[in-house]
């Protein structure tokens, strides 16, 4: 099966090839640890590093992002900040090969996941997207599916046959990991669309983590949420980085300051010019002593 082949290709260190007849999911994630853990806790593990080298992104002839080289460190939260149109979301979408889904879009340069070129020949973009999950700005649970099926959706799509018992365990672990289990455990069969915005976003995070990705990409995950739901997601992000590598695009600079370990600032010289990476550093450095004046002006809110 195509998915199995690429899984082996990417996961040789942390995800050994499954043996014949054994269930993929119970091998892939620490599902069996769930029962021995206190609810809501996650065990730390080393996730993978994403490295962009000389990445240029295009929409047809339009050069959207120019020559980005940066590292998204494992088990850390990297915030991508910058004004609208600076290419940060486009760059984020290139990290799990979603950029190419836009008609006419193209990519130059290399992106490595723990040294493996995700744009390499023969690499299945679907396999990349399972290892590098995405959470979007608007919570987008499958509206007609139950809460349970929303979380289990990725398992059904990706992993072939999964036993009911294993699926139950993954759903519970993922919902606990997303700080949602206690709120929904008595109504798992109800539609996901009946939840509040903040709960829906946590449901989407549970859905993204259910397939045991290495990296979570988040595109303004809180911009549609109220402040309390926002802080709940930020707490969750802090918890999730123990297991995953996280990159988050945010317009909220205080969110970047609060929730991230590293911050990358993108900017563009003028409208119509490509966006580029101005500076990346620890969040502490970017917000207390940025090196570039451009960064200083942006984080201080001096220019729009």
């Amino acid at each position, binding site marked *: 099966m195509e998915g199995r082949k690429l899984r082996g290709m990417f996961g040789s260190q942390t995800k050994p090839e499954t043996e014949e007849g054994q269930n993929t999911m119970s091998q892939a994630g620490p599902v069996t640890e769930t029962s021995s853990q206190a609810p809501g806790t996650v065990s730390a593990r080393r996730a993978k590093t994403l490295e962009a080298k000389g990445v240029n992104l295009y929409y047809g002839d339009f050069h959207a992002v120019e020559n980005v080289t940066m590292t998204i460190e494992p088990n850390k939260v990297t915030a991508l900040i910058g004004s609208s149109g600076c290419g940060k979301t486009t760059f984020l979408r290139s990290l799990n090969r979603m950029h190419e889904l836009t008609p006419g879009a193209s990519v130059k340069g290399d992106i490595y996941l723990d040294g493996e070129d995700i744009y390499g020949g023969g690499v299945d973009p679907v396999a990349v997207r399972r290892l590098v999950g995405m959470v979007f700005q608007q919570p987008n649970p499958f509206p007609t599916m139950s809460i349970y099926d929303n979380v289990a959706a990725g398992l059904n799509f990706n992993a072939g046959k999964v036993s009911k018992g294993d699926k139950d365990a993954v759903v519970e672990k993922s919902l606990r990991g997303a700080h949602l289990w206690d709120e929904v455990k008595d109504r798992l069969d109800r539609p996901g669309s009946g939840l509040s915005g903040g709960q829906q976003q946590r449901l989407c995070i549970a859905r993204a983590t259910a397939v045991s990705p290495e990296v979570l990409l988040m595109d303004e995950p809180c911009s549609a949420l109220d402040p309390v739901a926002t802080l709940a997601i930020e707490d969750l992000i802090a918890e999730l980085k123990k297991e995953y590598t996280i990159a988050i695009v945010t317009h909220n*600079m205080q969110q970047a300051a609060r929730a991230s370990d590293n911050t990358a600032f993108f900017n563009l010289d003028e409208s119509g010019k490509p966006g580029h990476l101005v500076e990346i550093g620890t969040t502490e450095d970017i917000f*207390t*002593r*940025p090196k570039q004046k451009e960064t*200083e002006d942006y*984080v*201080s*809110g001096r*220019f*729009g």
Partner: protein
Amino acid sequence: MPEIRAEYQEELKALEGSALGGLDLVSAALSRTLEAIEHQDIELAQIVVADDDRIDGRYLEVHQALITLLATQSPVATDLRLIAALLHTLKNIERMGDQCVNICKVIPMSGHEPPADQEMVKLILTMGTHTKALISQAKRAFEERNVEMARDMVERDDVVDELNRECFQLALAIGDDADQREWAMTMLLTARAIERIGDNAVDIGEQVAFVVTGLFREFEDASHPGANA
């Protein structure tokens, strides 16, 4: 693009002006203090003590306004460093004012016509003049964000420290007269207080370096002299 958050920027600028204006208040207090020492002017000393409320008031007022800016404007980067430095500097200014008060409180203790040693009085007035120059230099270095000027204060402060040691030697050699020894003791307290004002000025210089470079280092570590940062 037009400058945005103009009101916040203006307020921060005004607060910097108010905080550094505290150095002018301290400088005026020190001038009066030196005059009170020179002429043994007890009334003038009392005015300095009473007037210290203005320095304290400035401290509390600007401090509160800076806390409000922190709470409402989420300053970062240079703005954040400036606010942190101003909070620090305000405390230094308040301490400098208190040192003037300490001096002025001991002036009446030696009476209207104390057995003054003119050489020692002259030394203390010289210390005072040097220290006033340090206060001006601290203010100017801050306003101009001039790290070199701030760093230069260390050597100028060494002059004040040396004069303080000379005062000590004079006091040791002042003789056996009990009244004169008592007077010399109060003058040592005075010299020590002026020397501390100089140290506070140097501390403000360190804050200038912090605002500009983002690195907070003491120019000179009193517990490791000679090991310049």
